[in-house]
């Protein structure tokens, strides 16, 4: 009986193609909205999470907001790294500065750092050497440049030995970093110069007070312990004023981010689900029209022996086939759209269709077909055969 009902449903649907398609359109659009939006958000979240965790999950960044006229001195850095929980420490002085070579005239982001910075941030060399402790101690006028920076400032990537003018001082390039292919390279300037902390503070004239520094824990697992240790040290250093500084934990940053994207997913999914619901109402509307139009057909079927349940089954299956066919078309189109977006986005983010959202879309469509199919189907099944046979539509 089920197979026969399915055949009858297919006949009814294919017998009125345009109307069936328009009815399904609501579900198609709803499914596309649901699948595409949720897939895009979750793909983007996955990519960003990957990128962020590649920056190092054991990174703690500290900013001093109020030094209480007792600024953190460079010499104190070694005290911090002396603690068992903290592995590496690097102060950070960051500035945007005009840079100049014989080839180009640009603005660069200048980082004043300790050599340990490269390890904390997992930066790797393409050519040349990293900064050395001696460079910092002797305030050597040397710098490591980003890959793109080398291309822009020198027109070539083997820039080791070249000179660049930063804030009126001539600096020698000693190393070039590997190309940054991560998504983070989209933010901030392409031209980054990494120079000894002491040199940058001298050029910018901001003094030796440390306003911000990076620290890393011994490993990812001891992250929380390291944060606690750092917190205690800072609290002691700033005489119990927890507002004087702020510590940002990379992994808590990720937690926050994932909870934000989680909310975003639910929000977008919810909006898409509403459009699916509207599609379901469309199905109900057309099914009701169809039941009225086919009153006579229902009468005939009843006269020749179709019972209440048989008629009901026929119309519910028709509603279900409409919604599931719409769902299938929607999923196919969503796949196409996601492929297209991936193509357009290039290799920065790989968008994939989320299997779980496809499952949700199918379940939702089944639910909608059933819920919005039952009422018209009941109406059809309850028709009095005598009146239905007399109906002149």
């Amino acid at each position, binding site marked *: 009986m089920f197979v026969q009902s399915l055949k009858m449903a297919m006949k009814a649907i294919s017998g009125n193609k345009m109307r069936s398609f328009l009815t399904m359109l609501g579900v198609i659009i709803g499914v596309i909205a649901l699948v595409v939006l949720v897939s895009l958000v979750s793909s983007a979240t996955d990519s960003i999470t990957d990128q962020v965790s590649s920056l190092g999950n054991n990174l703690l960044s500290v900013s001093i907001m109020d030094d209480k006229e007792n600024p953190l001195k460079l010499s104190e850095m070694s005290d911090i790294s002396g603690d068992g929980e903290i592995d590496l420490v690097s102060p950070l002085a960051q500035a945007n500065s005009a840079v100049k070579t014989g080839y180009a005239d640009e603005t660069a982001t200048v980082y004043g750092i300790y050599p340990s910075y490269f390890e904390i941030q997992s930066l790797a060399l393409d050519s040349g050497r990293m900064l050395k402790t001696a460079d910092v101690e002797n305030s050597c006028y040397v710098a490591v440049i980003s890959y793109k920076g080398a291309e822009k400032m020198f027109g070539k990537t083997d820039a080791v030995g070249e000179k660049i003018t930063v804030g009126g001082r001539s600096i020698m390039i000693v190393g070039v970093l590997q190309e940054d292919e991560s998504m983070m390279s989209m933010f901030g300037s392409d031209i980054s110069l990494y120079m000894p902390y002491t040199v940058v503070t001298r050029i910018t004239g901001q003094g030796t007070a440390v306003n911000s520094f990076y620290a890393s824990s011994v490993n990812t697992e001891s992250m929380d312990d390291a944060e606690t240790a750092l917190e205690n040290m800072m609290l002691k250093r700033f005489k119990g004023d927890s507002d004087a500084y702020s510590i940002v934990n990379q992994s808590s940053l990720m937690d926050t981010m994932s909870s934000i994207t989680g909310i975003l997913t639910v929000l977008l999914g919810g909006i898409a689900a509403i459009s699916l619901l509207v599609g379901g109402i469309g199905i109900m509307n057309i099914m009701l029209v169809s039941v009225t139009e086919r009153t006579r057909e229902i*009468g005939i079927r009843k006269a020749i*022996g179709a019972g209440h349940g048989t008629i009901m089954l026929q119309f519910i299956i028709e509603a279900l086939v409409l919604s599931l066919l719409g769902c299938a078309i929607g999923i196919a189109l969503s796949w196409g759209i996601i492929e297209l977006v991936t193509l357009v986005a290039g290799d920065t983010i790989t968008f994939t269709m989320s299997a779980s959202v496809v499952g949700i879309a199918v379940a939702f469509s089944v639910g909608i077909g059933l819920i919005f199919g039952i009422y018209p189907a009941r109406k059809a099944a309850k028709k009095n055969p005598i009146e239905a046979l007399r109906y002149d539509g």
Partner: protein
Amino acid sequence: MNEMIVMNEVSKVYTIGGENVHALNKASLSIRDGEFVSIIGPSGSGKSTLMNIIGCLDTPDSGEYVLDGQSIRAYSEKQLAKIRNKKIGFVFQSFNLLAKLTAEENVELPLIYQGTGYSERKKRVQEALERVELTARRHHKPTELSGGQQQRVAVARALVTRPSLLLADEPTGNLDSKTSVEIIRLFHELHKSGNTIVLITHDNEVAKQAKRILHINDGKVTEVA
């Protein structure tokens, strides 16, 4: 011979606009197995109500109706559908074929509702279509068939379940005189081969074709000699 239909003081009352209308007023009749009976009556005589009750589309308010040994009481919709499916073959004035189905599929439909298996279904459909001489046009849809052919498909659909009773409601009402004769001849043939036929009409000429005529007026059934 066995009694196929026994009606004993069957009444049916409808309320139309606050007024009670006795569509059937203690109507009694009996029809034996294998009989060809026509029931004639003007419109408003209770003819349609009688047909609906004989066809198990409706149940009597009072009185007794026994069809093929089975007393039809206030059965549920589902049970009535089952009885219709098994015991009664309908032939309507306006053919009442499903427009989207082919002749063959229309004939097959009652068997599908009966839950008959595929091969048995095909065999019985073939038989029924042979019976009405429409095998050649079995893949055509109703709109591609003439009125007479459509009515023959309807007869085949009525026959396919091998019902106890063939109930025809003005079967020639929508046909020209030539095709009417054809359909009436088909009924005669079916009668000869043992089918019980009840033909409901308002047309005296058509009614005379039957071996026995019952007259209905004001909700009462009387025998016409």
